[in-house]
């Protein structure tokens, strides 16, 4: 140590900004890739499916998986491998269409309730409560009977119309919270109009939870379609979807044809799981504070 270091230091530039926080990594690759494969496979199924999925070849009923029929055939002699990809289209379409309807309804009605003065708000909430009080299954059947013969888009509409209620409540509370937040007040002080506040402040803060809800709606709609079709309330067995494929499952139970139950169900489950993982990622994790316990 030398004495010449004991001299007043020359002023040095001060680094003001803290270093950027490294982005957190989610284990998202697997679900995204799986879902991508399933969606792509369903969309481009004409390119690779070996047989016409609607063709009923009565010579080959209930064939277990083998080289000709990788996933076996069902009780009407259709090739399950082809049906999976072809029917997935319908299932995914219903899922996305229904989610679009229900998310739209939830966002519009939820925001209305969140922005409305107390009196109309209670009215909206009451109405919501009454609709929610009918078991979902009954509601679906009711609306469907109004709409008439089951078709894919009809089912999507029905599922969309019955799936928005709880989402609307979430939207309402979020809108209320955001509306009272100080940065919205600040923007109003500066003269920001309704649409400015909506575009610059509400929507960006709102997007994660909307995405989450939309993804969860897709998930719920796909599951509901399969349940309905299985119970004979949805698509008839002639219209191929994962749900209608499973509607043959009950007879397959007694005949020990496991592939008829397992394979479509497995695809269904994988899709639902991937959607859940993606939805949770969009929602963001739990708060980063530490447990005090």
């Amino acid at each position, binding site marked *: 140590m030398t004495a010449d270091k004991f001299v007043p230091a020359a002023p040095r530039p001060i680094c003001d900004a803290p270093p950027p926080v490294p982005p957190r990594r989610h284990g998202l690759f697997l679900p995204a890739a799986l879902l991508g494969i399933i969606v792509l496979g369903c969309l481009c199924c004409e390119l690779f499916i070996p047989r016409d999925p609607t063709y009923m070849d009565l010579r080959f009923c209930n064939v277990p998986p083998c080289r000709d029929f990788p996933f076996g055939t069902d009780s009407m002699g259709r090739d399950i491998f082809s049906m999976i990809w072809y029917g997935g289209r319908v299932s995914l379409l219903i899922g996305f269409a229904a989610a679009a309807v229900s998310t739209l309804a939830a966002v519009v009605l939820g925001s209305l309730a969140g922005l409305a003065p107390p009196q109309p708000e209670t009215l909206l909430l009451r109405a919501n*409560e009454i609709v929610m009080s009918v*078991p979902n299954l009954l509601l679906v059947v009711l609306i469907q*009977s109004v709409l008439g013969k089951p078709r894919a888009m009809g089912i999507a509409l029905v599922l969309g119309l019955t799936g928005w209620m709880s989402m609307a409540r979430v939207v309402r509370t979020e809108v209320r919270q955001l509306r009272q937040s100080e940065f919205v007040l600040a923007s109003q002080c500066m003269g920001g109009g309704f649409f400015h506040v909506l575009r610059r402040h509400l929507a960006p803060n709102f997007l994660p939870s909307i995405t989450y809800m939309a993804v969860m709606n897709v998930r719920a709609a796909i599951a509901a379609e399969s349940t309905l079709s299985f119970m004979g309330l949805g698509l008839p067995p002639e219209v191929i979807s994962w749900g209608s494929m499973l509607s043959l499952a009950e007879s397959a139970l007694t005949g020990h044809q496991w592939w008829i139950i397992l394979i479509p169900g497995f695809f269904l489950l994988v899709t639902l799981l991937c959607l859940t993982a993606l939805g949770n990622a969009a929602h963001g994790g739990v708060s980063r504070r530490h447990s005090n316990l």
Partner: protein
Amino acid sequence: MRHNALLLTKKLIIFLAGLLALSMAVFCVSRMAPGDALISYYGERAEKMSPDERSAAEARLGLDRPLHVQYVRWLSGAARGDFGISFMYKTDVLSLIRSRLGNTLILGGSGFALIFFLAPLLGILCTRLEGRWPDRLICRLGAVSGCIPEFWLSLLLIALFSVTLRLLPGSGAYCVGKSGELADRLEHLVLPLTVVVLSHLWYYTYLVRSRLLGEVRQDYVLLAKSKGLTPRRILFRHCLRNIMPSYLSLMAISIPHILGGTYIVESVFSYPGLGTLSYESARYKDYNLLMLLCVLSGASVMLCSSLAQAVSRRIDPRMRDGTPVSGEARNDG
């Protein structure tokens, strides 16, 4: 005292108005739907009827009147406790429901009880071991079980336990002629109950877990810890107590939800309960049955949500004193 009576009356009026609105909506929707109600009464025969016979039949069932007249007739009957007859079963709707209600209550009630007790226990386990393998395992399993559609899970269980292993019965509530035997009933209950519990348990566990995780991040946990309390005591006496109001009100709201969840399970397992009944009534347009089922479930939902409010008002001292829980003191700094 007077204040309370007034409040109660107000609630009662809101409740009745809600039921009225619900019944009106269901009435309109179901009658406007295309399809033939006579099929449920006369079966195949309805399709071969001549126009005269048809109108006679409709007149006999009161279906020829204008919609509002039909509704008023239904309403006045309902006020006297007469909900009409089921077109399909040709018996009084009320007694029909009464005969099936018990089965649904056994399945749904025991499922509800299991979920009600297991969810906090699992939630506490997860909170205690947050981030370690049991917590992660429960979360993963929960995510999977929450995704499986109920009917498919039922199919898998039936395929495994009753078709392949032949251990447990896969359909019905009891074997023919054994409706009084407890063991037989229990045996029939195992599989449907498993499905009901598995498909709902995760959701509630997750809720309890995330609430508890929020609680253990509060400062009062540190104070309790610096008193010298053990973590278990803090969890049970402080954290669990604090989430109880919201948990109880959530569970109260969920009663109809869990009961509704049994509908699908019932129909897969051909379990004679309200689920199969409501499904049939909607499908075959058994108007009176449908109306009563909807009104009943609506009433139960509304009752349960008032129950939920009452419960949380009673338990939470902040609500009991009439102070809003949050957003009141914020106005001034």
